[in-house]
């Protein structure tokens, strides 16, 4: 699909994604607001600039693959897919309802186009990304694998098993993006279980490590381009983000990890997002 590098366009797209996220979760009455809002700029940058994909042909064999390892931020994925034209935006309000294609965590068996993986149990997506990247290498394909992870998710041991294997097989066709918002359900990651020195951990596991401002479109896009230049190593982008970004009243507040806004709060959030 046509890519855009215009900051103004991306800003507009991310705002629309955020507003839909708030509408969806408020309508559902449950869901993960904080992380979904915090990732909107990254998702807008990926789906409208970085990824090679065809919304009208979701199974296009040469597409880049995006694995959402943190299935709980499904709302930002759904809102972005709808924004990109994978399905009609009207459907977004069916989130978490009976018989909906928009399950609480992504579920391929419900038929929503654009989903690469049914996921929701943390720590599994990087292994799947490794499998896909191995396949691309074996078949000499040029598509790239992006996997999206939470910072708290990195506390899962299986992530590091996967990290070891990606470096072992020199999978330079994987870019893992870590949503480094320093928040998880129980509180700040530094208090729940310290992740630092995070950069050094990835480096020690054989990855090329990048950092970016997860709310700067130009920085996200430039860093993804840089990451793709890696010759021998898998790449990880530690994207500094704020949970709840865009809604000033809840920014950086871990209590909004898994909470839905009431109808009144949603109105207020949308006002803040539209300002």
């Amino acid at each position: 699909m046509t890519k855009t590098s215009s900051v103004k366009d991306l800003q507009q797209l991310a705002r629309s994604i955020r507003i839909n996220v708030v509408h969806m979760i408020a309508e559902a009455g449950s869901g993960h607001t904080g992380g979904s809002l915090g990732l909107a700029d990254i998702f807008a940058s990926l789906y409208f600039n970085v990824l090679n994909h065809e919304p009208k042909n979701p199974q296009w064999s040469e597409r880049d693959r995006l694995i959402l390892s943190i299935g709980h931020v499904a709302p930002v994925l759904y809102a972005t897919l709808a924004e990109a034209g994978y399905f009609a935006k009207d459907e977004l309000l069916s989130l978490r309802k009976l018989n909906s294609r928009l399950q609480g965590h992504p579920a391929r068996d419900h038929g929503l186009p654009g989903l690469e993986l049914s996921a929701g149990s943390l720590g599994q997506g990087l292994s799947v990304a490794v499998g896909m990247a191995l396949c691309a290498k074996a078949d000499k394909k040029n598509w790239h694998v992006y996997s999206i992870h939470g910072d708290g998710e990195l506390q899962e041991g299986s992530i590091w098993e996967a990290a070891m294997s990606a470096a072992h097989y020199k999978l330079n066709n994987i870019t893992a993006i870590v949503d480094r918002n320093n928040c998880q359900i129980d509180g700040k990651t530094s208090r729940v279980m310290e992740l630092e020195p995070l950069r050094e951990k990835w480096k020690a596991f054989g990855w090329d490590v990048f950092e970016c401002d997860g709310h700067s479109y130009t920085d996200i896009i430039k860093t993804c381009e840089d990451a793709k230049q890696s010759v021998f190593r898998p790449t990880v982008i530690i994207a500094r983000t704020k949970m709840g970004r865009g809604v000033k009243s809840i920014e950086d507040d871990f209590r909004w990890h898994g909470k839905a806004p009431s109808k009144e709060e949603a109105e207020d959030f949308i006002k803040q997002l539209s300002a």
Partner: protein
Amino acid sequence: MPEKQLINRGNVATSVGFGEGLLQAGEANPLIVALGADITASVKVSPFAEKFPRRFYSLGIAEQNCVGVAAGLALSGKIPVFATYSAFASMRTLDQIRVSVCFNNLHIVIGGAHAGISVGPDGATHQALEDIAVMRVLPNMTVISPCDATQTRLVTIAALNELKGPVYIRYGREPMPDFTDETTPFETGKGQLLKDGTDVTIIATGHLVWEALEAAYALEKEDIHARVINIHTIKPIDQDIIIQAAKETGAIVTAEEHQICGGFGSAVAEVVAKNYAVPIEFIGMNDCFGESGQPSELMEKYGMTAIHIMLAVKKVLTSGNKVIEWNI
């Protein structure tokens, strides 16, 4: 049904059948790839790995990652095989199998090697006695427990070439009688009538199928005519052959090298209880861990030999009315 009595052509480990089947299927289908978790030779993936080094991925002692990588390969069009000791293949990896494999309904063959107490001296940690129960509860999963090396080879080829979705194949290390032949062709999901009989039916899986046959032949001398059925596909299970056995023989003994709780016997009992209730006795591990010992010693101590099956048959036949009379 075989008209003649099946004979043991010699003892062969079912793992050998798995290795041969994987190699044979791999030669015919270039999409098949295999993953290794450090014990490649022991679980008989080595012949494939040596013949197709570019289709074999060594991933180290990291079983959870192996399953996730298999899911990624399957999502991209490969047919992955991941084999390790069944204790780890089915339980260390359970969450990955549930979500990344079964929920995504991916065609991946998981080989559970060294299954059962007959792995012997390694002791309880390495004796998988819970894997059938754990695997059969997962939606989309096919669970197969072949009875000898020949059948394991056929099962492995069928799992890779014909089946869709996730498949768990259970196989053992100890050489055991190899007795199935051209009269017992393998068909996924179909139980096999190995010996006819009218008094009672012994329904067995895996290594205990041979023990069941030995028990049934011995019982003939005491004028007890036991039917013997091999159920290799535990899920989806062949309901018809079980219901027919319940109706025609009125009593059932199940036999498995696995915990009774939740395992193969439970799967049979679910069918019987729902469709045609008859008394059942269960041969298997009685809710305890194993220990070190020679395979034959362990099978004896924990009650999983032909003699134990014979005793269970006599018990079920004297347990009162064979067909339960319902008082309404």
